[in-house]
């Protein structure tokens, strides 16, 4: 499990890559801990799932905690490019109400860039 980080229009794009199960969640927990430590107020974050074939509750847990961190810092975090299987796990867990989920990265970018 890897996280590729880049910047688009002053948004952080986090491209996850790999299976987001218990092992995957543990592998990216460190990234999100460090990410939280960065002294950034009000940042806008897009998590891209294009290369995440699979997610379990362990993966959801990491994302919820990342969302909470970003919100605490007055920021915003949205998700995009999920396959149907991954999207369904968000639905079944009721977290599709908690996260804003967009089809394309561009849609997500537009949403978080809007004034």
């Amino acid at each position: 499990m890897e996280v590729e980080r880049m910047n688009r229009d002053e948004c952080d794009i986090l491209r996850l890559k790999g299976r987001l199960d218990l092992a995957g969640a543990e592998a990216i927990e460190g990234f999100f801990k460090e990410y939280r430590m960065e002294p950034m107020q009000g940042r806008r974050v897009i998590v891209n799932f294009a290369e995440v074939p699979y997610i379990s509750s362990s993966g959801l847990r990491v994302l919820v905690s990342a969302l909470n961190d970003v919100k605490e810092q007055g920021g915003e975090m949205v998700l995009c490019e999920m396959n149907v299987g991954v999207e369904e796990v968000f639905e079944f867990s009721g977290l599709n109400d908690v996260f804003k989920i967009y089809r394309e990265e561009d849609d997500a970018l537009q949403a978080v860039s809007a004034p």
Partner: protein
Amino acid sequence: MTNLMPNSQADLCLSLRADPKLVVIACKAVRNLAEIHGMNERDCYRLELATDEVCSNAITHACERDEHRNYRLEAAYDEVDDSIVVWVYDRGEGFDIERVKEVKELPKPPNCPVGGLGLHLVRKVTDDIDYLCGKNGENCLIFRKRVIPEPKLAAEA
């Protein structure tokens, strides 16, 4: 739930070291068995999820995260009910079966760390679930998922 009993005639029995990285092997073994019996792709994903959640629970709640311990999984195709049945055994302390049975209100962030989501998902994606605590020093979580074949394409139908 009488026909969700541990099965000595399973198609496969898999014992895995309690390492999170190896859980995918259990998921794929169960998925392969389901594919052999014609389960559709969406349901295979769901079956993988159920297997994953239950095996991850065995690692985190019943093996004390000790990677040298083992847990065991059996899986079988049940001809009578045209379904895949999975048994996951651990030697941990076990837990209250009602946790599995009762459908609770889902905890909502940001107030909580999303606990209890795993078994909620297992209930969502399987047709039947049961838990046998402490038989022969082993606990066993059992679930069943019916085999529904891939929907025919319009052109084939």
